[in-house]
């Protein structure tokens, strides 16, 4: 029966080619625009570490004074940690793994003479960073806690930086010159670029930057390296170890629900204790523990422009669908005669309904194909935008399937009302007036 309905749909659509083309075009344009933007949103709000994100958490403390007023256009002063708080959390070892970190940009020099130096982005952090985020080493290993405590002059390079500086991926044991410091290479990691760079300060370009070196936080303080990103202070002091300057990010790994509960309690206790000591002015309730995906949602790593564009595309799809509903309705109702004849010859209302729905689905399928082509064109143009997320914009399998589902769903939905109206035509009346 379905084949017969398809045949009927094909005949009917061929009878009004302009109208059919118009409907296919409308749904194709609507689907194309929506899928372009939904794909961009999808790739941007994707899980950066699907294997590990369930175990990664970010604690949040609020050391700001009670009378602190947050400037509307300035970054959140409580988003990061002060040095004393970060060190207290990391050295307490209450989580499975924990690391404090901050981003920095250093001047790297290629080995040999006569080369111009260049800037490289990297991270100042504590040793758990590598195991917690599951970075894989090509050679060597992370520095030890002893190195961290001793402010050892050591560094871990990414494969690409190692190649750029030394011409080889195996540079363990060699000396890298970063800014004016000589640092011994203890490990080389495979290049690592989670999208977004979830652990970085919100000021970073999270969709295009990648860390190319890692060195002990204590060493970076000793060498007075500058850090990137949001550094907010409220008591005038901008020394890095000040209790009134927030600039560090802290991440912890917690594997079970009971560990999460215990860590929550630990954070609240810590905040309560700091309040008792008179250092914190806000209540212990201000301490929170967020999972990785919660944190990404809070920090709004997806730019608001993208949200606006998604809304715009969906509104456009709504206009297209309304348009198709009106056209289908006109088309189906005009075929009152044909429908009445079929009804009079024994077709049930349900049969008519299914027949007309099939016709809508055919339009939806054709619109889906067109929409897919348009969405690929749209994504191609997004990839040529200057934004840092541009290179991510391409469709994966699920999004491809979703495109068709959306196109079919939209056109079936559009066909629903017209088909329902058409199958309620009274055959006797129609046949008599003819």
């Amino acid at each position, binding site marked *: 029966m379905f084949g017969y309905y398809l045949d009927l749909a094909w005949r009917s659509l061929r009878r009004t080619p302009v*109208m059919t083309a*118009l409907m296919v*075009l*409308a749904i194709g*344009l609507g689907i194309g*625009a929506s899928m372009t933007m939904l794909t961009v949103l999808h790739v941007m709000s994707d899980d950066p570490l699907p294997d590990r994100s369930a175990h990664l958490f970010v604690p949040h403390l609020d050391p700001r004074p009670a009378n602190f*007023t947050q*400037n*509307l*256009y*300035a970054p959140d002063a409580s988003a990061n940690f002060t040095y004393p708080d970060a060190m207290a959390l990391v050295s307490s070892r209450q989580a499975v793994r924990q690391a404090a970190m901050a981003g920095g940009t250093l*001047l790297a020099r290629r080995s040999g003479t006569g080369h*111009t*130096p*260049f*800037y490289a982005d990297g991270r100042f952090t504590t040793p758990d960073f590598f195991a917690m985020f599951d970075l894989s080493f090509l050679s060597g290993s992370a520095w030890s806690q002893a190195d961290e405590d001793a402010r050892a002059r050591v560094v871990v390079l990414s494969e690409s930086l190692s190649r750029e500086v030394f011409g080889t991926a195996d540079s363990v044991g060699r000396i890298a010159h970063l800014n*004016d410091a000589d640092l011994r290479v203890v490990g080389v990691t495979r290049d690592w670029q989670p999208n977004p760079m979830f652990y970085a300060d919100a000021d970073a370009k999270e969709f295009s930057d990648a860390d190319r070196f890692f060195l002990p936080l204590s060493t970076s303080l000793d060498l007075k390296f500058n850090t990137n990103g949001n550094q907010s202070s409220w008591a*005038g002091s*901008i020394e890095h170890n000040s209790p009134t300057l927030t600039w560090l990010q802290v991440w912890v790994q917690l594997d079970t629900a009971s560990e999460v509960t215990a860590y929550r309690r630990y954070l609240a206790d810590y905040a309560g204790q700091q309040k008792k000591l008179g250092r914190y002015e806000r209540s212990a309730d201000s301490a929170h523990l967020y999972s990785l995906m919660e944190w990404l949602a809070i920090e709004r790593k997806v730019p*608001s*422009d993208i*949200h*606006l*564009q998604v809304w*715009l*595309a969906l*509104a*456009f799809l*709504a*206009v*297209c669908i*309304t*348009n198709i*509903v*009106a*056209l289908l*309705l*006109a*088309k189906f*109702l*005009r075929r009152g005669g044909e429908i009445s004849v079929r009804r009079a010859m024994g077709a049930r209302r349900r049969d008519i309904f299914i027949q007309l729905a099939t016709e809508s689905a055919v339009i939806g399928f054709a619109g889906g194909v067109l929409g897919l082509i348009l969405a690929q064109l749209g994504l191609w143009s997004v990839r040529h*935008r*200057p*934004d840092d997320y541009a290179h991510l914009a391409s469709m994966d399998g699920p999004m491809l399937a979703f495109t068709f589902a959306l196109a079919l769903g939209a056109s079936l939905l559009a066909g629903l*009302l017209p088909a329902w*109206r058409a199958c309620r035509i009274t055959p006797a009346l129609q046949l008599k007036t*003819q």
Partner: protein
Amino acid sequence: MEIRPILSSLHKHRVPALLIVLEIALACAVLCNAVFMIGQCIAGVRAPSAIDEQGLSVISLGGIDEAHVESGMARNLAALRAIAGVQAAAAISDVPLGPDIWYDGLTARPDEESQINSSEYFLGSGGEQALGLKLLKGRFFSAEEFADSTLLPSHVSSSHVVLINESDARRMWPGESALGKQIYGDNAAWTVVGVVADVLGQDPNGNGPAGMYSSIFFPQRPSASLNHYVVRSAPQDRDRVLRDALQVLGKLEPGAVLEGKIYADMRADYFADTRDMAWMLMMVCVVMLAVTALGIVGLTSFWVGQRRRQIGIRRAVGASCANILHYFQTENFLLSTAGVVLGVVFGFAVNVYLMENYEVSRMPWYYLGCGALALWLLGQGAVLGPALRAAQVPPVVATRSV
């Protein structure tokens, strides 16, 4: 034109009629908001900045040993000024729309806190002329002021004098002259010695309307934080001047990281996103209007086809071609009006929602008016074709059975 028969006919086809109304309403709501956002994008891209934007080239210098900055700077500037076609050159901490953002909250009273990010610019000697600042009142910095000022370890200028933007002067001391007034920052105060025409801030997109033109200029003696050189020339010379300047500096500072850019390109890069957004909005608007128009054409055509017999009868009993034409035009006018009224309400609601959730400001009423007018015209334009076809239905149709 009698509208009662039109209304009763629409009542009979109320579902398609309602759909058309809904489509027009949606299109109107989206159109108003999109056009408003396009307007805002264009205003941003075109925002004036009172420096010599067309003549400037900017070279950023990194990786220089701090001990040699001072001695190197005089030599570098002398070499830059010697390049043919260079009108002025100076060292500066950052340029408007530049990457090295430096903000402070500045107020007219010592105990106040500012909620505006003011962009701070530290100028080396001759920086005012090199940028092409337009002095409106007061004076530029003196040689002693340049020599005496530096950046304290607390990241505050040790200078006693500043130049400020016209907008800031008006905001802080409305109706008074800003000259000689004290301006307060974190634990420091400076005297305003000059007011310049508005210069853009370092990141106007992220600073709201008040931060866009909040800029303050400090004098500074040679130091490591003055890590950009601005070179001013005639616009037609700037490409060559930049090439020469990079060559000269490359020779003088062999260990440095040099990056040179034409200022006009920097500005274009900064606003590239905004421009893209405007183009996208425009494209969506055009396509959406086309789809709406085609929808109206399609539906009216069907109605005309359906009513051929009735039209024939009306013609047979004396209606002229013009009567039939006007019938369909009036019908469309009624539908459009209903759609537009609904659309204006929708559009306003969307704007309110966007204001609450995104950085979008209140839409002036005339955007709603223009959107409504556009859809009215679109409706009339779209209905003309089918209506003319309807008007050509001959009266003889009335006598035929189907």
